[in-house]
């Protein structure tokens, strides 16, 4: 056993154990560490974003003479007008600009990459079991969500196949979630057992 002598490792390890104590019963130590974590994360995010504003707006305007950047700065500040009743209407201008730009960028990307490319990729030759399952699965799931005709007879059976395939898919997703959570647990165990207690090699 080679216990760490770094104060930060001790704080991290004890904080981790305090958060885990919630599993048994909610307690004030857990609450304190939860607030500490949320506060630290928020503080870090604020400092990083503040640096970004200084680097991309303040410094270019004040030191490099790029006065035109005042326009996006003003637009950004106008967003906060939403919090004042009298001038809340001013926030619609930057919001409209953001929504317009975002929609414009997203529409081409969604149609090209997530619709056309995906449809193209689903046109598979039925020469392997994998391909047959993919095509039948896709068509039956689409049929399950097709509500323009009543699900009777053959359509009902095909939609039922789609429902079963979706259940398998949700099971796969759940399995991945479990795997992800166990990975996170292992990461924290590595911090406690390795970095803090020195019981395992890192």
């Amino acid at each position, binding site marked *: 056993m080679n216990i760490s002598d770094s104060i930060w490792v001790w704080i991290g390890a004890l904080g981790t154990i305090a958060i885990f104590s919630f*599993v*048994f019963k909610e307690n004030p130590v857990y609450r304190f560490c939860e607030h500490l974590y949320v506060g630290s*994360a928020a503080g*870090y*995010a604020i400092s*990083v*974003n503040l640096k*970004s504003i200084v*680097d*991309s707006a303040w410094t*270019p305007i004040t030191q490099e003479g790029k006065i035109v950047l005042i326009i996006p700065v003003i637009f950004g500040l106008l967003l906060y007008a939403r919090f004042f009743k009298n001038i809340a209407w001013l926030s619609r201008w930057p919001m409209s600009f953001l929504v317009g*730009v*975002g929609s414009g*960028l*997203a529409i*081409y*990307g*969604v149609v*090209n*990459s*997530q619709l056309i*490319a*995906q449809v*193209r*990729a689903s046109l598979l030759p039925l020469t392997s079991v994998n391909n047959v399952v*993919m095509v039948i699965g896709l068509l039956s799931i689409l049929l399950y969500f097709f509500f323009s005709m009543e699900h009777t007879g053959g359509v009902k059976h095909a939609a039922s196949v789609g429902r079963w395939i979706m259940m398998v*898919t949700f099971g*796969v*997703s759940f399995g*991945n*979630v*479990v*795997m*992800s959570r*166990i*990975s*996170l*647990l*292992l*990461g*924290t*165990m*590595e911090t406690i*057992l390795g970095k803090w207690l020195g*019981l*395992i*090699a*890192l």
Partner: protein
Amino acid sequence: MDWKKLQNIDRRIIYILLILATVIPMINPIGIPVSVGASAQKFYNFMDAIPAGDKVLFSMDFAASGAPDIVPEAKAVMQHLMDKGVKVVSIAFWDNGPMFADQLMKTYEDQGFEYGVDFANLGYIPGGETAIKRFGEDVVGSVSKDFRNNSISSLPIMEGIKDTRDFAAVIDFAAGNPGTEEWIRQVQGTLGINFFVACATVSVPQAMPFVNSGQVTALLGGMRGAAEYETAMGKPGGAVAKMDAQSLGHLLIIAFIAIGNIAFFMDKKQAR
């Protein structure tokens, strides 16, 4: 038998057993062999074929909550590329990203690699999808200073870089949005870059359609993906060491799911 009791096992018992199932194999490894999946092998083969001196872009799009799943992947790929003499540039569209990139690069500076020559951390760009689009088309125009406040033009590694097509590969270490889909929509779809994803395990089902369509060349999935990559490299490391614990953890969860389901159906049968 009281089937209802089996359906309502005290969660504290489950948690204790899960912690034991993960801690014991971490201290006393069993040595369950790790096989390399097709996607991890493809990922490795592509990185292995990149010539020394070429550059690869890491997009560190995750926060501390996803770090235990994604950092092992970044470590494994970074080790491979550093061993081969391939240079690494990192960018982030999540504010935590540059911190993890910096931690990764500092370990290599201690080994004699030089910041600005062998690797560089371009920091964080806010703006999500619009920032990714801008960066994809104009790398140097999007970032004026790196994470350590150096001017981009002063970094030798950035010589010859105009847009993301100048990188041999772009690897998105992703835990959510902005991440994989935004990169595909705005950069991979328009510029046709070699795009790879190393994501959190929970994001694998969402990313698989893009792998099947070829928009993502190859994918690493979480800590298991990192373990497969380490195995493919022939240098088992931290991720492989945790696979025993992961496997036992999964077996325990499967056992509890089985117990719960058996108890449910037996209880129904008994009620009849």
